[in-house]
């Protein structure tokens, strides 16, 4: 599945941003723990100068667990979209054992409270990320193969402008931001 989303860092506290989301139907609040891994033997799953071209993670989101592998695609140096392979699993703790036997090592953990909102075309998440700050992440729910990614990205940017919040677009994901913060290259 193609994952096309825009991540912005918000230059305010959480409450003013949540207040702006009154336009949208609340979908709930989820506590999310993401555990990212690297592979000491496979260079494609290792960070290079804090950047990740591929990532593998286990996620605990509320009472559901997921395993995900993402392959990033770039336009030059700019992230464009990711091929995302995700599956719901019954247990992160069992998956950690399997992952460990496959030789993967833990890279970074990201603790996040996600405030989720409904829209017909987009998944909207206001994220309070421990150690990193407040972010807004908007992902288009369905991207057809024939669609031009940059046009979809522009569409999402225009949608975010309607929120009327002071923010800065991030050209990197939260794992990279966290790696830079912890200086784990």
């Amino acid at each position, binding site marked *: 599945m193609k994952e096309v989303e825009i991540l912005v860092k918000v230059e305010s506290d959480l409450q003013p941003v949540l207040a702006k989301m009154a336009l949208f139907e609340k979908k709930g609040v989820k506590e999310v723990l993401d555990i990212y891994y690297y*592979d000491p*033997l*496979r260079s*494609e*799953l290792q960070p290079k100068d804090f950047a990740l071209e*591929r990532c*593998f993670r286990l996620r605990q989101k509320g009472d559901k667990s997921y*395993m*995900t*592998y993402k*392959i990033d695609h770039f336009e030059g140096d700019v992230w464009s979209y990711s091929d995302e*392979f*995700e*599956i*719901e*699993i*019954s*247990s992160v703790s*069992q*998956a950690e*054992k*399997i992952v460990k*036997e*496959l*030789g*993967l090592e833990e890279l970074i953990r990201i603790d996040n409270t996600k405030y989720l909102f409904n829209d017909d075309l987009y998944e909207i998440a206001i994220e309070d990320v421990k150690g990193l700050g407040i972010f807004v992440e908007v992902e288009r729910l369905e991207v057809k193969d024939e669609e031009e990614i940059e046009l979809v990205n522009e569409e999402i940017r225009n949608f975010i402008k309607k929120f009327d919040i002071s923010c800065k677009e991030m050209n990197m994901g939260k794992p990279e931001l966290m790696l830079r913060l912890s200086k784990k290259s």
Partner: protein
Amino acid sequence: MKETEFWGLIDKNQFEEKIDKISLELGEPEQRKRLSIEVSDWADKTLDTRIRITDGKAELMQKKGNWEADTKKEIRIDLKADAAEILNLYEILFNLTNGDEQRTNVIQFENYIWETDLYELKLSHQTGKSDKYNFELELKEENLDYSKVLKKFGLHPYEGERGIAFWDKWNRELNLDARDMTEDELKVLIKSYL
């Protein structure tokens, strides 16, 4: 979870005869249909990771222990019975085990299983590119004399070498390879087992 298993080969005639013989002794078997998609890096001969679908129930399974060992440790995770998600898991595992010794064997079983308090006895008819027949005795009691059980039913454990050469030949003759299948072909096969 630790498992101690003994494996051996039989032919089609023996398979049919033994179903009757064992049923007389142990009662009617449970019949189960299974699809296993192995996604493993054979550079590590102590690890066997598979997606398994048994009678519609899907799981991720990993066995840890030398291939030729009788006793191995097994971990299982339940999965949703959804073909698209299972295909996603295949892609995930494929990327995680990518390398020169990667294997992606598609293994199909029709199993006849007898459970007692002391052991589980399974006769398998495997299909794919051809047909092969084999048995597996899994002990529930660590100190059980497995040779007595096998002798009672006229079964002989395979005593030859079962390393890479053996299994590569076995897979070439019997099993499909997921890498040779299109996404749609693999999805259709997965759906047929759900």
